[in-house]
């Protein structure tokens, strides 16, 4: 067994195990990490296949950008524990494994008994080294015969970017014309991160009475109104600023203040 076969065996076995890990993992983040492992091993295999530039591109583009994007989406999308792992359809799982193995056997038989057709090309190791290396040869090849496909891929990427921008825009952009301007959120309160929706058509400033001061939040609808209202005032807001009475007793958020 030559060292190349040994290296290939190690890389291939780890890649296949990680590939199975992608499909089998319960947690999608574990699937993504397993896919990273697969891609890095495949990059190693590309280096063995004398495609070093492709290996670097695979890691920079696939692992470093696409999978990062997938991880972002996994973390930003609220996922619940899907029923697929709670004893649902074990027959489906078993038949998947059996069919997979049968297919693998068929393809393996086809691959092992194949005959090579066609003429081999000119780019073996000596000619590639003579022309300056894998990157130089690939560059010459791409930019002399394949300029149009490169431009087409550039347009596809541009369309993809624009499409993603359009699709990922929030839906509430049309409701903004309905009179809601600003709101203030108190993060000092225990439930401070809950967003408070302002009623549409509210006046620019309003006097907050204690009984409708909702859990320590002061609601205003414009930035000017906020500066004239004391956010901590528990009693009626006085007409001139600065003359507010400081509330006595417990602070904002206590049971007494509601």
């Amino acid at each position, binding site marked *: 067994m030559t060292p190349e076969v040994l290296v290939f065996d190690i890389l291939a076995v780890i890649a296949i195990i990680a590939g199975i890990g992608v499909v089998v993992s319960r947690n999608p983040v574990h699937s993504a*990490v397993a896919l990273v492992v697969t891609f890095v091993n495949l990059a190693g295999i590309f280096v063995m296949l004398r495609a070093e530039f492709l290996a*670097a591109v695979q890691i*920079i583009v696939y692992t470093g950008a696409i999978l*990062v994007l997938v*991880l*972002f989406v996994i973390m930003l999308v609220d996922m619940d524990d899907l029923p697929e792992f709670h004893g649902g359809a074990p027959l489906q799982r078993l038949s998947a494994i059996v069919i997979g193995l049968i297919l693998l056997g068929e393809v393996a038989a086809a691959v092992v008994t194949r005959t090579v057709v066609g003429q081999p090309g000119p780019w073996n190791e000596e000619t590639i080294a003579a022309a300056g*290396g894998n990157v*130089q040869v690939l560059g010459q090849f791409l930019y002399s015969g394949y300029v149009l496909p490169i431009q087409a891929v550039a347009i596809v990427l541009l369309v993809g970017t624009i499409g993603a921008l359009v699709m990922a825009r929030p839906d509430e952009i049309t409701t903004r014309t309905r009179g809601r301007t600003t709101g203030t959120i108190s993060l000092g309160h225990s439930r401070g991160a809950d967003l408070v929706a302002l009623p549409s058509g509210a006046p620019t400033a309003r006097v907050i009475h204690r009984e409708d001061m909702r859990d320590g939040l002061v609601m205003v609808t414009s930035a000017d109104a906020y500066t004239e209202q004391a956010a901590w005032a528990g009693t009626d807001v006085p007409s001139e600023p600065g003359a507010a009475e400081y509330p006595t007793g417990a602070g904002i958020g206590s049971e007494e203040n509601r």
Partner: protein
Amino acid sequence: MSDQPLWISFVVGFIVLNVLLIGMAYMTWAERKVMAYMQDRIGPNRTGPFGLLQPIADAVKLIGKEDLIPKFADKRIFVIAPLVSFVTAPLAGLVIPFGDQVTIAGRQINLYATDINIAVLYVLALSSIGVYGIILGGYASANRYSLLGALRSAAQVVSYEIALGLSLVGVFIISGSLSLVDILNQQRQTLDLFGTGLQIPNWFIFYQPLAFVIFLIAAVAETNRLPFDLPEAETELISGFHTEYSGFRFSFYFLAEYISMIVISLFAATLFLGGTDGPIADGAWWLILKAMIFLFFYIWLRTTLPRFRYDQLMGIAWKVLLPLALLNIVVTGFVRLAFNNQLW
């Protein structure tokens, strides 16, 4: 690489790794001392003469801390995440040429671990994998502030990586090769400035000043250093993605940042300032001197500038650095085509 046996490459790589680790430890000392003198105080001076044993004291403290894993954290990923950052950081140092060849015990040994023909892309690829250390660390902490800090930091690193890569395309257009040894050899020639007899070295900073500036800014942002360290500053989001990490795991992130600083400084010195090329006696000391200039620049930035806000930070990457890098590529391509590099 094919001209020396594999075990010699391993030994050289091992030596490079140890040099990087020691350099990183004393980089922390140097940072504290230089920051202190810039802030008109002394810095560590109790542990050993001039505080030189301070990194060892820090290491002992960090190792001795309790290893806390949060209850709802994803244990496997919590353990693996800092390792991803810490392992990919020094791997980039394997392709940096510290010199030509020395003859030790009758053998010719290259002073670099390997000479791969895609060396620069290899470094970029390693920093792409390093992003996973940040994202997975933030995710595994089971802390929504860590997650937000991690996503912010990952978005920042990915955006500045683009500017970093594109700024290097100008260098590739001029040098015609991605291999660092080739780039170094090309910078060793001397130029005759406009034919007046004034000799300057053929360093790429004279060809690509804009790319140099973009590279420096993007490099500071890549390593999450001030003024771009919003995702991990202690006052923002409770120190971001490494909030829940303590003790030795935290030190992995911390040290990974310093190692990547050192590697990027070596990298910038090789790509733009000619690496080991110097007026007298070419050698590794020039490379180290130039790298130390960049490291001083890093510390200087940290002491002097305030932090960018996140939207300003992303705005700089996408609205300033990216168009400038593209403009640089266009102009460089035009110059190369029209003048065939004979501008000077």
